[in-house]
């Protein structure tokens, strides 16, 4: 486990999810942003020299 404040954050957020019916509205932008951002960066990697090969290695597809 990481340090104490990290552990406290896990617990604080879990309690928020349990108590606040609107938790998903708070979380959706964060979760979606990760996917959207990764796709954007993947597209940039594809433009690099040997980009396709680099991306396959990054994605463990070789």
């Amino acid at each position, binding site marked *: *486990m*990481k340090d104490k404040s990290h552990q406290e954050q896990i617990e604080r957020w879990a309690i928020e*999810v*349990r108590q606040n019916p609107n*938790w998903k509205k708070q979380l959706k932008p964060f979760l979606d942003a990760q996917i959207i951002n990764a796709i954007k960066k993947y597209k940039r990697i594809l433009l690099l020299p040997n980009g396709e090969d680099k991306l396959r290695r990054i*994605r463990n*597809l070789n």
Partner: protein
Amino acid sequence: MKREISDKTILDEFAEDFCKIVNLHCKYIICSGFVAISHGRSRGTEDIDMVIEKLSLEKFEKLHQDLIKNGFKCLQSDSSKTIYEAYLILGDSVRYTEIDKMLPEMEVKFAKDEIDRAQLNSRIKIPFTGLDVYFPKIEESIAFKEEYLKSDKDLEDARHLRIIYEDKLDEKYIEEFKEKIKRIKL
């Protein structure tokens, strides 16, 4: 515990679309990180883990073709025979995405032991998530994360699930399931 679930995430929609097809062909469960994320855990993932019952090549070909027809592609191969023989039947996973998108991915593997098969048989839909998707029992997910996976991330996932269900967990079941994991998986 009534929850207002709206605004499905990219992961939610991808999971539901994929599971809808798979459900027509075989039993499946969604496990690992997405169990915690669909319960509000604030962490990212780019793949969702799915265990499906072990199929014959013929049945798998039908499933694969249905996935292709519905806009998914397999990153390992276009050939269902290759996917089956070079990956699934050997115990390795394969990954599917929507054809025009690089993410998210569904990581699919066959059930390979008594525990996987038991989880498929006792799978449930979980109202809290608001998703039309089958998961293992929460106690089983917690046991897996605490006894088998054990990374920081997994232990935090388990902690999150324990808080969400703190008054409802069957601790005896968790302990018994951990024993089963030790006996069969470790």
